[in-house]
């Protein structure tokens, strides 16, 4: 499979001015300015193959947006090589942007004061989409996103969820092989999120569209992406399958017991002495949580022993969530490999 995105040693530095304090400092600033060079993206390299859906995650200020802007040709890199769809995004901007679709969750691409369909019509002309292709493709898009009734309304009268669906449709008018989504589900309710995810999956399957997605909502990534690229302070700290990330980081499971009679720590420890279990008291006297290794025999062994000896009202096996995993990674600042 060919590489759609090929990034080698990408770097972006910004000059940022700092102002001196006080009135005297302000006068001095008029003549000479102090500045510091801030590296937003620091020597990152990765490749993305056709048809992949990749989650691009990182904290605020980790360099996600900056790198997306370099990949879409908006910003010039300070250093490094980018080839997207076989082109240099910044050098061949006009030709290049015809082959990509972009959705910025926080910025509208539609014209605020005019009806959605007028925006679509303009975009169709801008991208030179033939009538027939437009009819076929957009009919499908409009139906799946259920935006038919919104087309004759001006954008300023749409709700956020409605607008976002229209934005997505607008980004797909020319059916691009590569789609960049910068926080597409920001501020949306669960139903709209689900609809957008389903839609993205569908176009990925139907047209083999490659999707690069940045988001703070990890459930988006879990639902869509098999691969994640994680950034921290401008560097890639993890690039690989989401599954592997979970396996290496989600060590162990927690079993939560709710007993119908009171239990004591000694009693429980005695019951499970064969296994390595850490017992913790939960929300009430009746609730206890056992942290164990993620091993089937241990889990069933512990459950068997405990349920045989004591009456239980409820039982839950908890897995560590992706969100917790990511948080742990950021706290430790690096990714351990299996």
């Amino acid at each position, binding site marked *: 499979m060919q590489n759609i995105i090929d990034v080698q040693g990408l770097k972006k530095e*910004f000059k940022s001015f700092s102002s001196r304090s006080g009135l005297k400092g302000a006068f001095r600033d008029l003549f000479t300015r102090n500045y510091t060079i801030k590296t937003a993206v620091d020597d990152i390299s990765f490749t993305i193959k056709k048809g992949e859906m990749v989650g691009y995650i990182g904290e605020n200020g980790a360099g996600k*947006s900056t790198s997306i*802007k370099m990949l*879409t*040709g*908006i*910003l*010039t890199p300070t250093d490094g090589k980018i080839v997207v769809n076989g082109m240099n995004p910044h050098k061949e*901007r*006009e*030709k290049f*942007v*015809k082959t*990509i679709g*972009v959705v*910025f969750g*926080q*910025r*509208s*691409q539609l*014209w605020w*004061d*005019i009806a959605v369909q*007028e*925006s679509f*019509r*303009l975009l169709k*002309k*801008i*991208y*030179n989409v033939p009538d027939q292709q437009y009819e076929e493709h957009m009919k499908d898009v409009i139906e799946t996103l259920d935006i038919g009734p919104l087309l004759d309304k*001006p954008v300023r009268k749409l709700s956020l969820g409605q607008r976002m669906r229209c934005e997505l449709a607008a980004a797909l008018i020319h059916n691009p092989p590569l789609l960049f989504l910068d926080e597409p589900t920001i501020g949306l309710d669960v139903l709209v999120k689900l609809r957008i995810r389903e839609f993205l999956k569908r176009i990925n399957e139907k047209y083999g569209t490659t999707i690069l997605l940045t988001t703070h909502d990890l459930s988006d990534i879990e639902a869509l992406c098999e691969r994640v690229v994680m950034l921290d302070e401008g560097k890639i700290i993890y690039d690989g399958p989401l599954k592997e990330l979970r396996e290496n980081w989600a060590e162990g499971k927690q079993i939560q017991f709710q007993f119908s009679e009171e239990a004591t720590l000694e009693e429980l420890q005695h019951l499970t002495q064969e296994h390595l279990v850490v017992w913790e008291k939960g929300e009430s006297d009746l609730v206890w949580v056992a942290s164990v290794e993620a091993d089937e025999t241990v889990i069933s062994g512990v459950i068997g022993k405990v349920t045989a000896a004591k009456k239980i009202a409820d039982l839950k096996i908890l897995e560590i969530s992706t969100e917790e995993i990511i948080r742990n990674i950021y706290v430790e600042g690096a990714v351990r490999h299996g």
Partner: protein
Amino acid sequence: MGKYIEMIRIRFLMMLAYRTNYYSGILIYSINIGAYYFLWSAIYGGKENIQGLSITQMTTYIAVAWMARAFYFNNIDREIAMEIKEGKVAVEMVRPYPYLNMKMMQGLGEGIFRLLFFSVPGMIIVALVFPIELSTNASTWLLFFLSITFSFIINTQINLLAGIATFFLFNNDGLIRAKRVVIDLFSGLILPLSFYPMWAQNVMSYLPFQGISYIPSMIFTEGFKGSQIYEALLNQAIWSLLLIIPVYGLWILAKRQLVVQGG
């Protein structure tokens, strides 16, 4: 080409969406023209003509200058500044068109809208109230329309320059306001350039501003005669071409400088 026409159409629709603004606009322009009419009648005070312009020609000059302004005037400098400040320029950069050309087309859409819905009705109102002499010579009208097309091009290029300056200054409201005053003054909108002292006329003949308002208004009032008209049009044409250089130069520098603000 299709995309440019579509953009003009969209801009037209956007202006229509806020058409009520224009009723007040017509009123304001009429008041302006009226005020200048009374001011000039006082200055003429019975004199036949000043600097080769009769009082009727003067009134026509003022009326035409303001109505032409409705066509060539646009806010794309402020729009560009806004798009840069709000980071919207990022969205513009992922579209497959030359940003500046598209902005110019938006300005043209705005200009055509104002010409049809503002200048024409405004001119009819003004012609009913004040003694204005409209030329019956078809070639004068033709040359006038050619001339205001150049006015539009020159003014828009200057607007683009002021707008692109935001890339370097980040906040250039002051520059834009200053530019507006300079254009109103040096273009001959407020006072025909022939009324300025000789040295000022000399300086202004080396600047592009007279091509914005003075030349089309003089053509319309037939203040220019014979070869003067063609020299004036040539002057406009040269400035229209010459200004392309700083606009593109600055744009290339600006793209290198581009920092998208706000995430």
